[in-house]
């Protein structure tokens, strides 16, 4: 239960960091270390080099600019959870983060770290899938932007190249016409989700003009449920619609895992979606 040996690097500037990433063979970035350190202690991960990005300035700010919420990759989950800016402008993210681990892990764990680890049951990638987050990627070759869908390749696998780093996550801000919901089932408080759901609905009067619903835990990657979204668009949110959506959710493709079979996960997805939508219906 001890990490194998590695070379340790703690660059102080972005330029220094990008050079290290370009030059070092088999380097892993450590942000908060709440996923990577357990993997290293188990020796599931044995990188030759560890590049610690804690000292680099400018990666931990939360800003509102041009109608977009910009979250630095090194923002601690606990700070994101406590941020009035996030609570006001992207409440679904704040709700989601409350489900991540515990106070002690949220104090170290970062928003960007969770995204790059890309566990299929995790909450931050779910919100990024829901809201089509734009991700900023830097390397010595330059910076680029990509959609979460292009970023998330496979479970625990992003499309980042070895010399690249995620620096910022951009999310659209919610406005008075949108309602959101988040629900999760885990076997114990703070455990990995078995299934989680996030929704984002835009209304014109009582009619849903834009419906977004995304799930974690069902498949390999957090993803929106196109079919459910189609059913909800242009409809009035009503008990009848919620019944229909829950029935549809119970038919979604799902993958069994060691502890939960696909039918059980579909059942959870339907129950959670119903709960979340009924909450929106009740509270307006």
């Amino acid at each position, binding site marked *: 239960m001890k*990490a194998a040996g*590695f070379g340790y690097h703690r660059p102080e500037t972005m330029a220094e960091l990008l050079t290290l990433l370009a030059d070092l063979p088999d380097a892993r970035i450590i942000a908060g270390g709440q996923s990577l350190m357990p993997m290293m202690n188990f020796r599931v991960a044995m990188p030759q080099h560890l590049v610690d990005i804690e000292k680099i300035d400018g990666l931990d700010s939360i800003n509102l600019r041009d109608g977009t919420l910009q979250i630095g990759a090194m923002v601690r989950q606990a700070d994101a959870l406590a941020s009035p800016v996030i609570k006001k402008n992207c409440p679904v993210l704040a709700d989601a983060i409350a489900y991540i681990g515990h*106070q002690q892990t949220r104090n170290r764990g970062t928003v960007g770290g969770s995204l790059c680890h890309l566990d299929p049951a995790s909450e931050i990638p779910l919100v990024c899938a829901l809201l089509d987050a734009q991700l900023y990627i830097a390397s010595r070759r330059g910076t680029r932007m990509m959609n979460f869908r292009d970023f998330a390749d496979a479970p625990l696998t992003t499309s980042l190249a070895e010399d690249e780093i995620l620096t910022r996550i951009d999310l659209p801000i919610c406005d008075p016409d949108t309602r959101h919901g988040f629900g999760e089932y885990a076997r114990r*408080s703070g455990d990995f989700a078995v299934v989680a759901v996030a929704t984002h609905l835009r209304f014109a009067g009582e009619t849903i003009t834009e419906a977004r619903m995304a799930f974690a835990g069902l498949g390999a990657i957090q993803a929106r449920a196109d079919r459910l979204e189609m059913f909800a668009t242009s409809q009035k949110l009503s008990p009848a619609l919620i019944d229909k959506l829950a029935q549809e959710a119970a038919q979604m493709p799902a993958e069994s895992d060691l502890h939960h079979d696909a039918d059980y996960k579909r059942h959870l997805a339907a129950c959670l979606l119903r709960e979340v939508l009924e909450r929106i219906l009740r509270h307006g």
Partner: protein
Amino acid sequence: MDERIITIEVNGKQYRLKVPVRENLADFLRHRLHLTGTHTGCEHGVCGSCTILLDSRSVRSCLILAVQCDGRSVRTVESLADAAGKLDPLQDAFSRHHALQCGFCTPGVLMTLVELRENADPSEINEDMIREKLSGNLCRCTGYQGMVDAALETLSRPDKRL
């Protein structure tokens, strides 16, 4: 083996020591500083028995390297009682409320509650909040009721108690 010299403040005392970069903070505290109050249980961030305060925030000391704590300040359970052995009010309440049996999880539990004491408004501390904070600390013998009672008595205002 890659090693670094680090400067670290632990329980108000400054240390300057050479450490292998792969050594985690829990092992550093226990094996180099002989502060064995911090316990290592699961060593992968689940059980919470190694919880300490790093710059006044609770963290798992098994999930952070000693080298990452260079220039930072750590508090462990040894910082709670005074030099004469007089217990911190939380520890005293734990004793009176039978909040521990084997005591293995206790150091982590106490440090989690110290963070709560220092950061939350006593008028807002209630049973739900205490239970939420303690969800990151596994106790396998006493159960949590005694801890919750002790924490409520020490940290919350009388009207929030059971």
